[in-house]
Every structure is written in C-alpha cells, then in structure tokens.
C-alpha cells in the first residue's frame, strides 16, 4: 500500500542506430551474454519481445503498467520493469533475465535461489522470477543489506501469497551464511 520504491522507469535514451522499417525495427542486444538480432514491431515492450518473440518466459506479465514487478529484468546493470521499456530502447544494451542468472551459475540454481528453495519462500511462484532478479540485483550492489534495505529493495515486487516474510528471511539467511 505504501508507495513502492521508484524503480528505474523507462530510460529515455533513444538509440539513433535503431533502424525503423515500416513499424518494424531491428534490435541487436546482449541477452544473457548472448548476441541477439531480431526484427520486431517497434511499438512492443521489452517484456513482449522477451516472452513472445524470443521465448524467454521467466519475466511474467502481471499488470503491464509497471505496478507489480513480475517482469523485472536487469538492463545495463539496473533492475527495471520490462513492461515499461520499449523493445527498440534495448538496442546495443545488455539484458539479464533469471535464465541469465542461472547461466552464470553454470546452468545451476544460484546460491540465493537455493535459499529461496529451502526456505519454501514462494507459494504460487508467479512473482518468483521477478523477485529473484530484484534480490540478485540488490545484493550485487549492496552485498550486506540490512533487513530494512532488503524490505526497501524488494518493495517494488508484489506477491499476494506469502506475506513476504519467507522471502525476506531467505535473503537474510543467505547474507548471514555469506559473512
């Protein structure tokens, strides 16, 4: 209910190199460390591009207007809502989804994911990819956050099932074990 943390909303950086051909554009970017080159309608969101053009299904669509955080991905090192970014905007940039985080962990779950697993942190699981991406980004920038910082850092991701406690507790346990 409280005002959620304002995430980096749509970056207005326009990419002059984006070729627009009759409502289509060609977008080249790095997706989970892999070069992607795709022709896509220029008016679709990054979320749509990932899910429906590239088959990357971990970002979910819960609201399509930036309220719920289920579509959280990392764009150039910042966690953002992919429903608020237009596909052409990622041209020449780096996008990391949950699949990319697992790829970095050699195709396995990341250690943080293991903590979420063992803590039974999620229920329906729909918000899980977004929350794991947001938490990963948070810990990347601040490896030893306080409980308050974790709460603040995850406040942009809605979960209706868990009451958040088992999610926050998993992050805290993970940090404790790290230090």
């Amino acid at each position: 209910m409280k005002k959620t943390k304002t995430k980096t909303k749509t970056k207005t950086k326009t990419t002059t190199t984006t070729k627009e051909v009759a409502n289509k554009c060609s977008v080249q970017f790095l997706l989970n460390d892999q070069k992607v080159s795709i022709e896509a309608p220029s008016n679709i969101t990054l979320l749509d591009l990932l899910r429906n053009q590239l088959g990357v299904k971990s970002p979910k669509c819960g609201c399509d207007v930036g309220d719920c955080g289920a579509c959280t991905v990392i764009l150039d090192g910042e966690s953002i809502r992919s429903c608020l970014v237009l596909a052409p905007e990622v041209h020449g940039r780096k996008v990391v989804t949950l699949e990319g985080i697992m790829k970095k962990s050699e195709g396995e779950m990341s250690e943080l994911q293991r903590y979420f697993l063992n803590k039974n942190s999620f229920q329906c699981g729909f918000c899980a990819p977004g929350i794991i991406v947001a938490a990963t980004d948070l810990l990347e920038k601040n490896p030893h956050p306080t409980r308050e910082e974790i709460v603040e850092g995850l406040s942009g991701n809605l979960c209706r099932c868990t009451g958040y406690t088992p999610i926050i507790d998993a992050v805290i346990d993970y940090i404790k074990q790290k230090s």
Partner: protein
Amino acid sequence: MEFSFIGKPAVRLDGKEKVTAAARYVDDLDFGANLLYAAVVESPHAYATIKSIDTSKAEKAPGVVKVITGKDFPYKFGMYMQDRYIFAQEKVRFVGEQVAAVIACDAISAERAAKLVKVNYDVLKPVLKVEEALTIEGCNHSTSEPILIHPELKNYEHVPWFFPRPESNIAHIRKIRTGDMDKGWAEADHIFTDTYTVPRYAHCAIEVHAAVGLYDFSGRLTLWTASQSPHTQRHLFAEALAPLGVAHKDVRVITPFVGGGFGGKAGVSMEILAAALATTVRGNPVKVLWNRAQEFYNTYQRQGVLAQIKVGVKNDGTIIALEQNLYWDAGAYVEYGANVVNAAGLSASGPYRIPNLKIDSYCVYTNLPPGGPYRGFGYSEFLFGLESHFAEIAKKLKIDQIEFRRKNCIIEGDRLAYGGKMNPNGLQEAIERVASEIKWGEEEKTTTKAHAKNIRTGKGISLFWKAPAMPPNASSSAFIKFNEDGSINILVSAMEIGQGFLTVMAQIAAEILSIPIEKIRVETPDTDRNPYEWQTVASHITWGTGSAVLKAAEDMREQIFCLIERALGKERKDLYLKAEGVRSHSDETFHLLYKDFVISGIPMEDGTFRGGPILGRGSFMPEYTSAKSNPETGQGGKPNVHYTVGAAGIVIEVDTDTGKVTIPKVVMAVDAGRVLNPDLVKGQITGGVLQGLATALYEDMRFDDKGRLLNPSFTDYKIPTTLDIPQEIVPVMLEVPGHDGPFGARGIGEHTMIPIAPMLANAIEDALGIRIKSLPLTAEKIALHFQLHSHKLIANDNHSSL
C-alpha cells in the same frame, strides 16, 4: 503416533520449478503459428437493453477472423444457479460484461476491431446497492418498487438448497431458526443492536485469468486454463455447449501452474469464452487473456455485505439470543456467489454457543460485477460485524474480552445452528495461547517513538471458524502408479495454487508407502489423465484429496501384501512396508525392494512371474453430509463436514494525528487437526494475515454512481508490499484430530484471513475508544473518527454515518 514424513517441514515438491522459472503458467505455453487471439466488446453500462449490434466494420478490419455475439451462443451456464449467458443476450447487467468478441490473428488487431463493434443500448436505471434492490427495515430506501434485475428468476435452474424469491431481486435466502427468539429476548438482561458494512474486494492474484481453447476437426475441445477447478470446468463447458454436440468425453481441461487463486479462479468465469469461441474457429487455438483491469471487473469479486445484528445477553455475559440479517451485494449474476451467501448463513453464529438464533442471509442481485468465492467464503464478511459487536457488548458489560469469549465459545458437542453437533476442536486452547502470546491484560510499551503523545497502543482479538462449503456429494479421487525404480507418480486433480498441496499429497503417500518425498512426483492435472476432483476450494484439499491419496496408498499396500503372500507364501499379517520395500515381522532377513517387483513382477522358480504393475486407487466422499433441510428453519440436514477453528490477536500502535496503524505483533492460533507440514501451515498464516490486514486497512473497490469500477489497477487498488508487513507474526498450530481426513487433518488455508478485520477493529477501539463499523479501517477514517470522538462531536455508538 510416530511419523516419518507427516508433520515434517519438507521442501516443496514444486519449489525447484518455481525458483528456476521452469514452472509454466497458461500464458507461458506455446500454441504454434495458427494461434488466434480474442478481444471482448464490453458493456459500458451497468444496466441496459441491447437494441442492436453492428459488427460489419469490425469484420472488415485487418487481421479479423470472426466476430461473435450473443446470437451465436444463446446458452446459459452457472455453478449453483444457471443465471448467466456466455455473452449478454437482451440485457447487460454490469459494466464490463461481455457483449461480443472479436477473433483475430493477433491481440492488437483483435482489440482494435473490438472498438469498431457498434452496440446500441437503451440505458436503464441501475441498482447499485442492496438498499436499492429491496426493502430493508431501518435502511434508507426510496418508496418506489425496486427495479428487477432478473425478471426471469423463477425459470432459472438451481441446486435444491437455494430458495429464490421470484419477482424480487432476492436470488436466495438462507434462513436459520433455532430455539425460541421471544423467550431469548425475554431472558436477556440487555439487548444490543447495530449495523456493520463490508465493501467488495478483489483477489489480486498476480497472474491474470488466461484461457486457450482448441476445437479440432475430430470434435475434441481442449482448454488450457488458469483454474482451480479443471473437472468442474469440464462439466460446465460440456453442459453449456451440449447444444453443439459436445460431450464430457470430448472436453479436456489442462491446467498448468496457477499464479494465485484465492477463489478467483474457481468455477467458470471468463474461461467460458475460450471454450465457446474455439468452437467457431475449428482447428485454431484461441487465446483469451484478461488484462489487469478486466481481472478486477470481470471475474468474481468478494461480495459486500450489510449486517444488522441484534444480540441478547445476560448480565454475566452469557449470549442468549442472536438475530442477524445479512444483505449480500451479490452482483449481476449469482451462479457461484449465492453459495457464499448460503455458507455464511449456516455459520453466522460464529464459533459461539447461542441457544436462540434467527438468521436471514439474503443473496441480492445488483448491477455490479458478479460476486463469488474469495478466501474465507463469506466468513470474513459476517465475522467483522459479529466479533466487533461482541467486543462492544463485553466492553459495555465491563467483562474482559478474553473472558467473554471463554464463556461463550463453542465446544465439542454443542448444537450447531443447523442442528448437528460441533466437532472436537482446540478453540479453548487457541484462546488461551493467543491471550498469553499477546500478553493480554498487560500494558504494551510502544516500540516506536516511545512515549510520543500522539501514539496510542491497543490490543484486539477475534475468534474464527469456517467449514468447507461444498455440495454434499463433492468428491475427490487419486491414482498412484509405481515406476521401475520404485518411485511413484500421484495423479490427482486438485490444483497447485500456491498452498503447497503437491507436497502434502506426497507426504501422505510417503508415510503409508515408506518412500522418500524425493522419489514422488505429483503434477498439475489434465482431466483426460487424472481422476476426478470437484474443485480446489473450501480448504478441503488436504482433507478430501488427501483422504483419496491415503486410500490409494493403502490400496497399493494391500495389493503388495496380497502379491507377496501369493507369490512367496509369506503370511500377510507379518508384512509391513519400510524403506522402499516390504519386510516381515517373522523374518528379519526378508526385505524385498519395490524396484525389484512393482513393475516387473516376482520371478518364480519355473521362470514365470507373478504380479504386474501396481496401481493404487482411492475415492473419497463424505457420505454423512446432506444439504436437505427445511427452507424456513435450516434444520434437518448436515451441510457441513466439520469446522476448523482458531483465535487471533494483534498488538497495534496508532498515530492519533494521522490514523496510521503500525503492527508490532500478530498471533494466530489455528487447529489444523493434524499439521501435515508445519512450514506450509506457517506459509498460510503469514500470507493470510497480510491479505487480511490489507482488506481491513486499505483495500476496497470503489464504484461511481453509474456502476463503473473506479480503481481497477494496482495503482489505485493498493495491495500490500514488503513495507506493509507486521513486525512479527506468531503462528500457533494446534492439533485436535478429526474423525476423518488424513491423520485427522483439516484445512486451514482460508481461515488465516477470516479474523483479521474484527481483530483490528477491536484493537483500534482498545487504543482510541472509537468503534468503526464499516471496512476498510483506513487511516483517514480512523483519524476523522478520533478527532470527532475526542471533540465529542459524535456519540460513541453513532459512528456508522462516517
């Protein structure tokens, strides 16, 4: 009892799939290049007659395959009462109701074309409040006759336990009459009356409703739905589309993971569109995907209620009589919601012993979106008034709140409102545990801004109860099959909606068959492959489906013993299952592992084999229930299988300037009968408490004077974030086993939300001396009440005008 798997906090079976995003939800599935998309033409009016529909422009729009209107599907459907059409026929009855649909090659073309469908309406005056829908004594209403929303009500088919009032807006009245009211009022030393109101709420699962239908050229209709009710959906699709020649065996419903349900994905709502539309474009799958706004206004909503309560008590606090009129704003169609009204009526005494009862629970049609099931199924709504009212009575009689509840709480063997006897339960223990956990009677020191002048602390409690609301013949079934390595697959058709039931089913089978949980797979259902389950609602899965799984596992055990006896001559009575195999009490050396015989059979000396794949089956129906009762008294049946009970307490701090509530502590004690997985029970408590707090503090649906929902988004309908959680939630799990259910277990999922609103209202009263009688208890409302109260501008018992 010593258990190996029951009562242990196992890691969720679906945990890995969910933390790795391997879990697939309907909209994650790929349907190929010929997938079509549907967009719905919605009514802009709450009540209107459809004069004409012009689809010609839309049909010519780019990408459009077909435009469908009510003329194409003049078929009714409904869960408990068939009062709904697939598309609106002559009339629309709520803003957002589907009037037509456009099927196109892509979603954007479908949406664009839907805007080109021209519908001409004769706008009628809508009925937006229960007070406008019928005459209610003591409420303001105009003197003119209420406008009828369903003049055809008398012709609607419904279950035998509904009692509609044709020529009115009353779709059903559940009446309860026990004892002697006149005597009750005469014996009472005091009579207290009051009115409480609860608005509508939205489920807000993060996954929106999604359905894909495919009607192939062989006549097979397959649906992929985000649903809590695959078999019920199959049944309702087959019923509704029977005129097209569709039969049950031709309909297949596949339900992958569901991103949250809370009742919102029970029964059939928008999924009927995917089923119907698919039949018009044979061979092409059609996707219907709701957006967040549609999720708010065209699925089920939690019904609002106006509760008039009259209570007679003795000087010592003994409750002697209760009269309660519940007027439910059930919306435009009550095919499901009428049963919420029914369930609430049966249990509106709350978990209290009250000898004289008169309850009238009215299901009232209005021109707002259809009401329906939401976690708590009516109990959260009536309990707000009842527990608030009891707290007021205790206060006025100067009786301690805990003492008042100790004295009046229902105990085993007490007579229930409809005549049965209360099941064994831990309610008294729950009260004591909660009182001790929140240090009832002790002054609370403010934890933040200690001693600040504008911070007041308060404590509140509420009891709760709930029975599964089900038809008397709601049933569950299970298959279990062995694999070559001795692992098993459990096939059931309950839905994994977050509660963790897959894990619990595995624990039940593990306990009987002595197989580790890691070697058990339980998946979400496909009605072609998995046996029947009524629906994943009513918190009945652990109990009902769990009973079926238990029976299936016992069936396997029986088959194994029979086989060993027949093939190896071992005495059956000596055999038992241990460590993934069979052992014998009389022969310590005997240990035959499952993997060595459950598929391949037992080799005999002559080279032949005995046995064959072992398959377990289990069915469960509570054969002791009946919905048959006297419509005027509610007596004579046994509609509820049992009640799960508990108590909850809260410690709050309120800022008197802003009305802002902070919550240092919530305690919830629930009697689970048997805790099968404490981690999952705890999950239900932490989740249910926060969902409950949100409905109590800030959520509610706002409609304008034309019946339009004003806040159909998470921007305007705020649900809690990590910043809104209580500082501490203490779960207390009690175990008074039931006579049935796996190991005595009962459901607890919905219950954790039920006591939250009255508990909070009671704590606010304790902190500030103000009684707020309408939800939600927003900061604004609290601050205004407090200002008025402290300036003595309103009498303490006359706050309801705010």
